[in-house]
């Protein structure tokens, strides 16, 4: 038996606060489906028991659940059209809202002040069974560390469905640390974060979209719990439970991609370089590369796009050796300097045709980016 499977009572009846209802609905409504083939997925499951009204929605990929205090005058469950309920809850005239399921009429009444409405319902038995939290159990993780890790790696995840496994973020819990990696095959972000707590060793590929939603629900919460089941991953934060299906497949062996040694390791003032890359990058349009030319003591960043224009800017850096010029996608290069932290960033190079690595001085974050072959190099 799973969590959402419950007895359908004689008729659910609850009184709730409008503002709280609106706030909680806005949380779960992000998982209401817009797919047209399974109607019940467009609904929100309301369940009243033990002095609480719980809300649940799922789009078959992501599920969100939360609860609010309620005066329960009749226990039971019902599924109502989600989009409709969210819209009307916002507009209710009175702070006191009564929601009552009239099973024999197949409707839910929503009353507030002088306002009264009747919504048609979906069959409760048709609502997907959401993963039961207790079955596998969750463990608490360092919330700030996890959210920071997600925000640092997630932009390297692919948005292209042609390689579905790359639309996910690899999460691996090892003794004392969390490792997350994401790559779209043009760049790779890996972050290792020391983590206190009782996390067992495990590994899962989690959809990047789901982790973005985790950030949303957890940023204001005090704690974050996580559980990994065979097919789903569960996050609990701030009274909200988020579950997501796991991505199936083999994540690329990213450790093989990161070079073991480099020809050049240049320490760059992170903020200055970031500014330069942003400014100069404006002229790198239509897939034109941004060029980094290293000469003795100087870095020149330039970009040009035919029929658009050209720009360049130099700054002093501690480069020693033969001049080297290497090209990148301007957005990917900028993302790299944005993702590392600290005043200085290390820029590690082998040759203009081999990947470059950007690392911050203060933490274990690696950003690897593939170069673009420049004409005449």
């Amino acid at each position: 038996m799973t969590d959402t499977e419950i007895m359908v009572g004689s008729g659910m009846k609850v009184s709730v606060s409008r503002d709280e209802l609106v706030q909680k609905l806005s949380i779960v409504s992000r998982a209401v489906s817009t797919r047209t083939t399974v109607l019940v997925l467009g609904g929100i499951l309301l369940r009243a028991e033990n002095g609480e009204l719980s809300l649940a929605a799922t789009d078959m990929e992501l599920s969100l659940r939360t609860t609010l205090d309620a005066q329960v005058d009749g226990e039971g469950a019902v599924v109502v059209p989600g989009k409709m309920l969210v819209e009307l809850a916002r507009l209710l005239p009175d702070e006191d809202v009564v929601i009552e399921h009239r099973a024999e009429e197949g409707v839910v009444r929503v009353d507030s002040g002088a306002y009264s409405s009747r919504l048609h319902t979906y069959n409760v038995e048709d609502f997907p069974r959401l993963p039961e939290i207790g079955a596998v159990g969750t463990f608490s993780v360092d919330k700030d560390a996890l959210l920071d890790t997600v925000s640092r790696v997630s932009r390297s995840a692919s948005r292209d469905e042609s390689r579905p496994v790359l639309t996910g973020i690899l999460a691996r819990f090892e003794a004392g640390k969390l490792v997350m990696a994401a790559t779209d095959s043009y760049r790779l972000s890996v972050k290792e974060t020391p983590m206190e707590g009782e996390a067992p060793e495990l590994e899962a590929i989690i959809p990047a979209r789901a982790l973005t939603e985790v950030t949303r629900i957890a940023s204001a919460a005090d704690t974050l719990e996580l559980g990994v089941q065979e097919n789903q991953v569960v996050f609990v934060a701030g009274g909200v439970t988020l579950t997501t299906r796991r991505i199936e497949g083999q994540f690329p062996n990213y450790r093989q991609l990161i070079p073991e040694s480099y020809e050049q390791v240049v320490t760059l003032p992170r903020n200055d370089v970031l500014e330069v890359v942003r400014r100069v990058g404006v002229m790198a349009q239509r897939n034109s590369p941004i060029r980094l030319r290293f000469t003795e003591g100087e870095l020149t960043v330039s970009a040009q796009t035919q029929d658009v224009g050209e720009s360049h800017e130099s700054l002093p850096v501690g480069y020693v050796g033969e001049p080297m010029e290497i090209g990148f996608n301007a957005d990917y290069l900028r993302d790299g300097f944005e993702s590392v932290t600290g005043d200085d960033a290390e820029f590690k190079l082998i040759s203009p045709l081999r990947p470059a690595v950007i690392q911050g001085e203060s933490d274990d974050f690696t950003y690897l980016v593939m170069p673009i072959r420049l004409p005449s190099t």
Partner: protein
Amino acid sequence: MDSFDSVPEQPEAKRLLRAALAEGPAHAYLFHGPPGVGKSLAARAFAAELIGDRDRVLRKAHPDVYELDRVGDQIRIDDIRSLRHDLHMRPFEAQRRVYLLEDAHTLNEDAADALLKDLEEPPSYAVMILIADELGPLPETIRSRCQHVPFRRLSERAVREALEAHAPELAPSTVTALARLAGGRIDRFARLLEPESARRRESLLELARDVYRDPSFDPALAAEQVIAAAAEFGDRARKDAEKDLERFHLTQRDADLRLRRAQRGAEREELLASLEELAAWYRDLVVVATGAERAAIHSDRLDVIAEDATVERLLAAERACELVRQAWRELEEFNLNAALALESLFIRLRRELAPNLVYDS
């Protein structure tokens, strides 16, 4: 007793599918055969057995059955991309996840290409079922990557039984006629049983007879009448689709495409069905004129047919039947202007069946 009991006949398909369930399913299946003979029903039954939660699958309420939700007239690459996105996530609650691709014969080239890799090597939990009315439009690369499950035209008896179960209130003579009009397709029941159906058939048969009886028969008007009847169906299908749309957030473009598909699809189906009824009328004239009343399709109109089925009309009726069938094939296969095609058909029918009746123009 299994979910296949609700599927009429199709012994070969059922044998293959039961064997697959016993031995473990392949990655991908291609259910093929004429429309309306139980392919979708069988696919859902197969999904129910694969997933195990029979009732919920058959009620279309199981989260681990993914139905490809095509937007326009064709299955496009975007539809396949959404499928891919889902395919590589593990099942929601079951051990398996079943993907149903209805109207797989409408896969366009890009979409078919995009599907190839996943058809060859889908994740272990996935079973893909392609459902196609014809194999011709499907590229060999797709066909060769699926196990084929053939479906055949249903016998009159099977259609009759399904119809009786569907509408037990019908008189036996009506059941016979409607079962024959259904042309071996159980998806035609809704059309044959809807309230306006009797009236519409009456006026169509009136037209069929006017061709050889009415001195002032006007082919253009006749064509218009048939098209207007089909347009009614299209409008109704569009309104039904509009009601569905209100529940979803779709882009304006997707919503429009969906409505247009519903409307055009229903219009075309009705037009083809009308032509089949028309062809059947002229065929019945031949059948009855040669003394084989029992084989008549419009078997509830035998008195009228007997009146019209003269020996003198025999050859012309046979040719008329063939003319209508030819028009059906042309409309089915090509994107013709239906009004012109029908007008030309009625002119030829008139010439064939009533060469001596003068046009009153």
